[in-house]
């Protein structure tokens, strides 16, 4: 019986594409650096020579200076040519890997590589559409994206219980006097993890460890590095992680909602009851950045690289699962401010029904896109 070759793992393919592309970019930077340096040195020599005054018959200094200058330009061109040679196999490999990924994007086949000048933009080597878009998305973030080893993630401290409790008080203290008791009750609910996952006391590094290695920033859910690399985790995180940067910022959407509930109903429970069916168990609300008064700098987080559509997001999530099991290759994330970058930014809040007519907050976090199925605060009238 012949054994079928194991098909490629989607996550491994995705991670390899990013790794190879990053190598190409590194090569380019190194060649750029070397070329600039070589040209600078040649020019320095040429300038020094030009200052030497000798009779033409003894030595033609201007001609020599010109020769040295030309040599500098030649070195530059040589280096770029060699770069193009060096990266050619990588570019070919990236194209092959993108072809393996294409079916997961609903595409039957990937067009062949574009015929581009070997020296030139990486982008031009790939066929238009899926492949070029993927490359562009990865290249756009290549200088800003970061990763974290599992060892570093293991060293990121979890926030102890009392730190979360303190943060809840600090956030509630920023609410108007009338809303403070309700705010504390909301954030302290047994099913609420708004502060535990998105509170202002959580460090940037802890958000990154949550996104890349599914490490619970509150340390409540099991997380264990594996001897062979990778990690086991009971904590889940989607393709982005982040939160509010200050107690004031986190209080903003809560305040907007509580005020709205007072103005349009007798309170939160009544507002939510009125806008849900009796048997609805959960409800999602979008408080726009405008309504909440959220501004640049109020939120910070990370999102997976090249996750601008559903299939690409699934690629990235699979690459993360691959790293969780094998410890490598690393996945990368881009720091971002959802309030600034998103087209329909705000805060996502979810409530859970806990009795026939009472509700408990589950979570509250900043988003760049409104989920199209979330209810807009402004529509709850």
């Amino acid at each position: 019986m012949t054994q079928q070759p194991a098909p490629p793992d989607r996550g491994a393919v995705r991670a390899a594409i990013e790794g190879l592309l990053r190598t190409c970019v590194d090569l380019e930077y190194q060649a750029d650096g070397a070329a600039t340096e070589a040209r600078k040195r040649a020019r320095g020599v040429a300038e020094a020579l030009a200052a030497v005054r000798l009779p033409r018959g003894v030595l033609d200094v201007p001609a020599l200076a010109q020769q040295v200058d030309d040599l500098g330009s030649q070195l530059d061109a040589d280096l770029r040519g060699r770069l193009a040679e060096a990266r050619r196999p990588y570019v070919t490999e990236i194209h092959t890997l993108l072809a393996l990924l294409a079916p997961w994007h609903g595409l039957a086949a990937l067009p062949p590589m574009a015929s581009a000048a070997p020296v030139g933009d990486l982008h031009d080597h790939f066929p238009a559409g899926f492949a070029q878009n993927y490359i562009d998305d990865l290249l756009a973030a290549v200088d800003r994206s970061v990763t974290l080893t599992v060892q570093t993630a293991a060293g990121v401290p979890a926030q102890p219980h009392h730190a979360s409790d303190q943060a809840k008080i600090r956030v509630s203290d920023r609410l108007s006097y009338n809303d403070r008791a309700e705010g504390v009750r909301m954030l302290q609910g047994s099913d609420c993890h708004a502060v535990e996952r998105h509170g202002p006391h959580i460090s940037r590094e802890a958000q990154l460890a949550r996104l890349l290695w599914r490490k619970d920033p509150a340390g409540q859910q099991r997380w264990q590095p594996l001897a062979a690399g990778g990690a086991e985790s009971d904590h889940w995180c989607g393709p982005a992680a982040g939160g509010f940067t200050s107690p004031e910022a986190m209080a903003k959407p809560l305040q907007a909602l509580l005020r709205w509930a007072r103005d349009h109903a007798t309170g939160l429970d009544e507002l939510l009851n009125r806008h849900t069916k009796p048997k609805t168990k959960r409800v999602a609300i979008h408080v726009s950045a405008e309504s909440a008064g959220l501004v640049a700098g109020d939120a910070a987080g990370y999102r997976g690289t090249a996750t601008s559509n559903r299939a690409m997001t699934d690629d990235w999530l699979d690459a993360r699962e691959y790293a969780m099991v094998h410890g490598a290759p690393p996945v990368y994330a881009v720091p971002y401010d959802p309030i600034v970058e998103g087209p329909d930014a705000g805060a996502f809040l979810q409530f859970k029904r806990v009795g026939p007519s009472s509700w408990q907050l589950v979570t509250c976090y900043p988003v760049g896109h409104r989920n199209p199925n979330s209810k807009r605060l402004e529509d709850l009238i």
Partner: protein
Amino acid sequence: MTPPSENFREYFGSGLGLADELPESYVEACEEVPELLADDEDGSYRAFRDELAQHIRDSSYPPHRTADSQWITDEWLRNVWYDAFGPEPPPGDPFPVPREDWGHRRRTPFMLYAIHQTPERSSPGAPAWLAARGLTFDDVNAGVGISLTGQPASVRPAPEGWLERLHDLTERGLRAEQPGER
């Protein structure tokens, strides 16, 4: 049927549509389905289920982001349908997933988020969920469990004539045209 109704958005937006954002809510929403169907005096949950089937049949659920294709969106909804309502394909699905693929060659969010190596480490509703679909923990773990390497995944590119099909559905008023379909 276009666009999604208020009733659809309320049910979908509170759990089944949130696998990426809030996996816990997604798992809870999947596990609540039998109860919601049994206790459905106003018929609103059945209406939600029927509308999901219609969106899959007519490719009429708009992609969340402009960069998402309708095919990928529909494939996502097929996974949600399986996780919520079981192995019978939605009525009228023009491209049903072969039943034997589920859990063996095709992974769904519920399998990823709720089913782990042992029942103890899995979601409380996982045994009932598996039984209702004729699967076992071993099936899912062997096919799509912790070891993702070498997984013979079922990948379905958009079928031939897909764009023409979308144009036809659009012309018949069953869906709204999405960017990039011309």
